[in-house]
C-alpha cells in the first residue's frame, strides 16, 4: 500500500513538519529549563547565543536582544541558570534550539521557579487584572496597618500618617512578617480587618530584605487574602527592586512603608491649603461674577441709550427739520422756476406784440394808396394827353378852316344834307349856312342857275 506514508519528503517539508511538532507541544512552548551556560557569545546585535548543558546533555540556546535587555544580571560562561522559553527548530540548520525569553541565576533557583510558577498561575486566574483594583479612599478615617509591631516599617508608617493626616485613626494589626508562620499570620490579619470593617484602607507590608525574607508576601495564601479583601490594600514590601506577588495583587503598590503611608492619606497641610484655596476660589468666583455682572450692567447703563437718551429723538428732529427745509426749498424752487419760465415767455410775448406789425402794415397801406393815386393820376394824364394831341390834329385838319377865307357851306334837311347843286333845294326850302363862326338859318328865296358852268 503505497499511500502517503511512502511519500518522499523534501528536506524543507520534513524540517517544517518537525518544527510543527515542537510547536504543537504545550510543554515545549512554555517551559523552564535548569542548566549551565557554555559557549556564551554576546553578539554585537545584542542577541545572546549559548549552550545549556548538564552532566548528560546539552541544548543550543538563544536569547534575543529584545528579551535580554531586561535581565537583572549579566550571564557568564559556566553560570548556572534557570531559563524560561520555548523550543523550536532553526530550519536552516535543521537543529532544534531553546529560545530563551527570561532567565534567573540558579542560586535561588527553586524559590524563584516556585515564584514564577505561582505568579503565572495566579495571573492566569486573573488575580492581577486591573479590573479588580479598588480605588484607595482619598480621605480615610481609619487606616489599618498590617505589619510587624516592631521594626522601622511600623514606625515609618505611623510617623508619616501622624504628620500628614492626624485626622485619621490608625488600627494596627501586628503580624509575623517572616518565617514559616508569616504567610498565614498576614493572611489571617487581612481577613480579621475585613471582618472588623473599621479600616477604610489597609497597609500590608514590611521592610526590605532578601527574597527569602520577603517570601511570605509571595505565598498564595497572602495573595489570595489580599485579593479577597473588601478593603483596598496598599502593599509595602521591601525595596523598589523587589516585586512580590502581594505587590501584584494589591490595589496599590508602594515601594516602601513610608511611601505606603503617604499613598494612604492625604497631606493635611496641603489639604488645609486646598480648603483655603477652595474658600478663596469660592469668594473669588462669586466676587468675579458680581464684578462681571456689575461691569455688564454698568456697560449697559452707560450705553448712549441711557446716557444720551434723547439722541435718537434729536436726530429725528434734525431729519424732520431737514425735510421741511428741503420741502420749502423745493417748492420755492419750483415756483421760482415757473416764474422764470413765465417771465421769459412774457418777455417774448411782449416782443412779438403786433404793434410794430400794425405800424408796418400802416406804412404799406399808405404807400399802396399813394401808388394807387399816382397810377390813377398818371392814367388820367396819359389819356388826357392822347386826347389833346388828337384834338389838336383834328383841329388842324378841320375842313371848316376854308370858311375863314370866306367860304361857307349850305345844308338842307336840317343840316343833314349838304347842298351842292341847285336842284338839291327848292324854293322855300329851309337851308342852314355854315360859316366860320356859326350857322345861318335861311330860306330859299330864289334859285339862280349858273350859265357859264360847263
Amino acid at each position, binding site marked *: 500500500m503505497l499511500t502517503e506514508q511512502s511519500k518522499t519528503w523534501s528536506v524543507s517539508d520534513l524540517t517544517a513538519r518537525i518544527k510543527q511538532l515542537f510547536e504543537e507541544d504545550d510543554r515545549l512552548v512554555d517551559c523552564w529549563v535548569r542548566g549551565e551556560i557554555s559557549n556564551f557569545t554576546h553578539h554585537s546585535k545584542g542577541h545572546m547565543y549559548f549552550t545549556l548543558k548538564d552532566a548528560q546533555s546539552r541544548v543550543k540556546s538563544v536569547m534575543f536582544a529584545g528579551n535580554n535587555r531586561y535581565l537583572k544580571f549579566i550571564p557568564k560562561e559556566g553560570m548556572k541558570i534557570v531559563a524560561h522559553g520555548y523550543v523550536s527548530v532553526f530550519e536552516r540548520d535543521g537543529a532544534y534550539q531553546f529560545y530563551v525569553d527570561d532567565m534567573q541565576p540558579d542560586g535561588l533557583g527553586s524559590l524563584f521557579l516556585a515564584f514564577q510558577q505561582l505568579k503565572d498561575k495566579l495571573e492566569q486566574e486573573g488575580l492581577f487584572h486591573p479590573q479588580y483594583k479598588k480605588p484607595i479612599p482619598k480621605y480615610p478615617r481609619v487606616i489599618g496597618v498590617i505589619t510587624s509591631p516592631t521594626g522601622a516599617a511600623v514606625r515609618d508608617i505611623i510617623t508619616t500618617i501622624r504628620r500628614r493626616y492626624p485626622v485619621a485613626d490608625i488600627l494596627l494589626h501586628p503580624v509575623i512578617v517572616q518565617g514559616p508562620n508569616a504567610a498565614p499570620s498576614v493572611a489571617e490579619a487581612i481577613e480579621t480587618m475585613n471582618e472588623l470593617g473599621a479600616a477604610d484602607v489597609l497597609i500590608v507590608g514590611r521592610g526590605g530584605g532578601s527574597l527569602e525574607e520577603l517570601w511570605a508576601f509571595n505565598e498564595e495564601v497572602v495573595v489570595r487574602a489580599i485579593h479577597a479583601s473588601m478593603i483596598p490594600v496598599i502593599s509595602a514590601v521591601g525595596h523598589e527592586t523587589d516585586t512580590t506577588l502581594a505587590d501584584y495583587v494589591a490595589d496599590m503598590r508602594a515601594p516602601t512603608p513610608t511611601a505606603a503611608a503617604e499613598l494612604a492619606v492625604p497631606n493635611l497641610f496641603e489639604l488645609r491649603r486646598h480648603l483655603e484655596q477652595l474658600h478663596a476660589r469660592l469668594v473669588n468666583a462669586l466676587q468675579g461674577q458680581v464684578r462681571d455682572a456689575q461691569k455688564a450692567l454698568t456697560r449697559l447703563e452707560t450705553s448712549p441709550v441711557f446716557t444720551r437718551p434723547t439722541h435718537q429723538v434729536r436726530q429725528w428732529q434734525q431729519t424732520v427739520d431737514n425735510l421741511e427745509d428741503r420741502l420749502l426749498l423745493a417748492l420755492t424752487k419750483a415756483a421760482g422756476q415757473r416764474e422764470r419760465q413765465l417771465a421769459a415767455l412774457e418777455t417774448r410775448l411782449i416782443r412779438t406784440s403786433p404793434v410794430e406789425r400794425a405800424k408796418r402794415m400802416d406804412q404799406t397801406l*399808405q404807400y399802396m394808396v399813394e401808388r394807387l*393815386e399816382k397810377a390813377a*393820376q398818371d392814367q*388820367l394824364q396819359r389819356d388826357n394827353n392822347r386826347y389833346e394831341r388828337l384834338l389838336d*390834329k383834328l383841329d388842324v385838319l*378841320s375842313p371848316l378852316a376854308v370858311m375863314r377865307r370866306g367860304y361857307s357851306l349850305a345844308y338842307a334837311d336840317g343840316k343833314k344834307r349838304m347842298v351842292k347843286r341847285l336842284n338839291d333845294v327848292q324854293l322855300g326850302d329851309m337851308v342852314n349856312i355854315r360859316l366860320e363862326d356859326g350857322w345861318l338859318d335861311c330860306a330859299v328865296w330864289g334859285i339862280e342857275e349858273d350859265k357859264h358852268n360847263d
Partner: protein
Amino acid sequence: MTDTKAAAEQELSFEQALARLETIVKAMESGDLALEQAISEFQEGMQLARICREKLDQAEQKIEMLVSEAGALTKKPFQAEES
C-alpha cells in the same frame, strides 16, 4: 352823323372813342377825303373828341369823388398834373 351812330358812339369806351378819332385824324391827314366826307369825318371826330372829353372829365370827377370819400388819406383833392 346819324342819331343811331351818335348813340352807338356814346357807348364807346374812352379808348375806342380815342382810337376812332385817331382813325379819323389819319384819314383826314391823308387828304383823300371829299370835303363833304371830310366834314362828316371831322364832325364825327369832333363828336368823338367831345365824348373823350366827357369821359375824361367823368374820370376826373370819379377819382376826385373817391378821394374825398376816404377820410384822412384822401383829403388831398385830385390835381391833374401840369406836364
